[in-house]
């Protein structure tokens, strides 16, 4: 928030919010660093820290825990010792004496059983530790080879209101029934245009902080990863799916998911509209930096036509000026719904 906090009259609300996010991220990073430093000093015994952290986890939702395997193992280990010395406190007069007598009389028996249970629990948690170590090793290898999700492309010439393909998209969508979704929606500029044409439209934007003001303006924009969003749509739930700046740098697996999900989520006569840079546009000086960072490369337009044709779309391709980009418009023949189980 340096340079103007939310109460600064100079900055816009969006600038202030971005600055607040940056400041918070910096402070939390410093806090995490200080936590690591203090841990390294050993000023808090490990046992005490574990007890405190177990208390923290006691009333936490399992689904919300980061590194839940480690925590689950910690909890299992903490519970693996069965204490045969039962508490004898009592609110009733003489109750403690009675309990203490029973405890003393039965301790040899309870202790024998408890020791065996403790040994079993300890052996089980040791086995789980071995398993955890192996899973971690595999995960480390997997992470090293993991391909990041495709970055959203955004250039002024190809992804803004002045782009050549906006008019054909609006023309193609005219009279389209059902809900239309646009991704990546950015600040909602295309959603706004489509809505002004009287169509039922919403947007999905995977990048953080782009849509914070959208709902305030009355637009239906969601901040979600595009594929996650498509996976949460009912079969045949959409009238049209418009993807711009999304598929260009996708991997083969991601593109495969897009095709299957388009077939799955679009109603009969629904439309999938895809804008992509061409191979020429991808390697030109006018391409955004994401072109160098992406895991995949743009397909030729004919390849999209083939892929979409296989799942029941009739496809038309429009090429942009200087063949730097293109638009693919596919109309579902209704046979694609439910193609490929996506959930």
């Amino acid at each position, binding site marked *: 928030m340096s340079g103007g906090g939310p109460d600064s009259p100079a900055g816009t609300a969006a600038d202030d*919010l971005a600055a607040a996010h940056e400041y918070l991220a910096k*402070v939390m990073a410093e806090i995490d660093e200080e936590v690591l430093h203090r841990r390294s000093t050993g000023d808090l015994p490990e046992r005490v820290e574990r007890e405190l952290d177990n208390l923290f986890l006691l*009333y936490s939702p399992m689904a919300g825990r980061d590194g839940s395997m480690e925590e689950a193992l910690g909890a299992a280990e903490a519970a693996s010792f069965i204490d045969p010395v039962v508490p004898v406190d009592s609110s009733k007069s003489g109750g403690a004496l009675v309990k203490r007598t029973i405890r003393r009389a039965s301790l040899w028996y309870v202790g024998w059983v408890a020791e065996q249970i403790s040994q079993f629990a300890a052996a089980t948690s040791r086995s789980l530790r071995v398993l955890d170590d192996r899973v971690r090793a595999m995960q480390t290898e997997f992470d090293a080879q993991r391909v990041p999700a495709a970055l959203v492309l955004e250039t002024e010439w190809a992804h803004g209101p002045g782009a050549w393909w906006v008019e054909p998209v609006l023309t193609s969508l005219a009279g389209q029934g059902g809900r239309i979704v646009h991704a990546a929606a950015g600040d909602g500029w295309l959603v706004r245009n489509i809505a002004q044409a009287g169509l039922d439209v919403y947007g999905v934007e995977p990048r953080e902080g782009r849509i914070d003001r959208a*709902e305030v303006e009355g637009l239906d924009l969601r901040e979600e990863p595009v594929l*996650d969003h498509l996976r*949460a749509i009912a079969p045949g739930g959409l009238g049209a799916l418009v993807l711009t700046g999304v598929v260009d740098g996708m991997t083969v697996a991601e593109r495969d998911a897009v095709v299957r999900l388009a077939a799955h989520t679009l109603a009969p006569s629904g439309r999938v509209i895809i804008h992509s840079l061409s191979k020429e546009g991808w390697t030109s000086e006018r391409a955004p930096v994401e072109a160098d960072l992406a895991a995949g490369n743009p397909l030729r337009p004919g390849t999209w036509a083939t892929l979409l044709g296989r799942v029941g779309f009739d496809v038309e391709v429009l090429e942009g000026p200087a063949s730097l980009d293109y638009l693919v418009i596919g109309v579902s023949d209704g046979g694609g719904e439910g193609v490929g189980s996506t959930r």
Partner: protein
Amino acid sequence: MKVVFVTPRYGPEVMGGAESAARLLAEHLAAQPGFEVAAYSTCALDHITWENEVPAGTTDMNGVTLTRFAVARRREEEFFRFDGKLRLSPRHVSWEQSQRWLDLNGPDVPDLIEALRDGDADVAVFSPYLFLVTVAGIRAARMPTLLHAAAHDEPALYLPAIGDAFARSDALCYYTAAERRLVQRIYPVAEKPQIVLGIGLGDPTEGGRSGGDLLGLGDRPYLISVGRVDDHKGSAMLDTFFRRYKEHHPGPLALALVGRVHSTIEPHPDIVLTGEVDEPTKWDLLRDAMAAVSPSAMESFSMVVMEAWEQAVPVVVNALCEPTRDHCAHSGGGLWFGSYRQFEVVIDRLSADAELRRRLGASGRAYVQEHYQWPALTARYGRFLTSVVERGRTTPA
């Protein structure tokens, strides 16, 4: 536009979070020009028994035309046995079993369902998702339906008959984006019109007294935690963490636990237990706090976090609580802790850095002002309702 809210219970004496939120929303909407707001509810006030306690009939309550309908039968003990059985594996429950669960859960209000079927409202709003009156109402309504689910990650959310309510709703309203993520992980409803609305905040009604004086702390800085003092709300954890913190960080910092006490909190010279306090006292205490701590991992929205920000007080939240952590991340108004170590460092930073506190508080306040003030919130909600009505009933009744 005629709007009817449907809740299992209704009235200021009902403490349920979702039902209170629906009532407040109905009342604020009723104050907007162009909205005629009704509420359909039951004669029950106790959600365990569904006993009819207040008379059936129509009255006016703060601008809302409230009609209460008699519950046809009390909740039987069989429900709790059946619920315990289904909770073990809710994802594998059959349709018939889940419908049986709903019937037993109630409340069964046939006259209310009939009134919905015959009603002339432009849109029907249901909250929360958990009850028979919601699921049966959404099935019966002829007008467009909007579900304020108030969903938690709990076994009932996974029951097939509940999924039917989500599928048949024409639109959805969430408290937080975290609630939306939860629902969409379970049900394919992402394409439905929806809004993340939250809850509106009233104007602070301060009493004009010093928070430190009210707590008997004078000028000492203090952390505040407002809400039920309960182990399930993280109070015992906060109490333990704070005691540990004070052992190694002696100084004037104190902790005020403000709310009805359900936990055992041993006396400590730096911890003040106030019990329940009135609204002006709460606002005075919040205003003068160094920071407000929300230790609970199970919040679906957290009004207290909003109230602290309304007073430009920074907040500290449980890192495992998605909704409150989301609030902090989106607003830039608070820090979070996921361990004792992190708690210790967070409190150290806040204690030592007045500029940090100012910036967090200011960001939080801007967030509340933009998103959770009743006028702005009801205006957004009104626009959303209009769009839902324009689309009409899109799913079969």
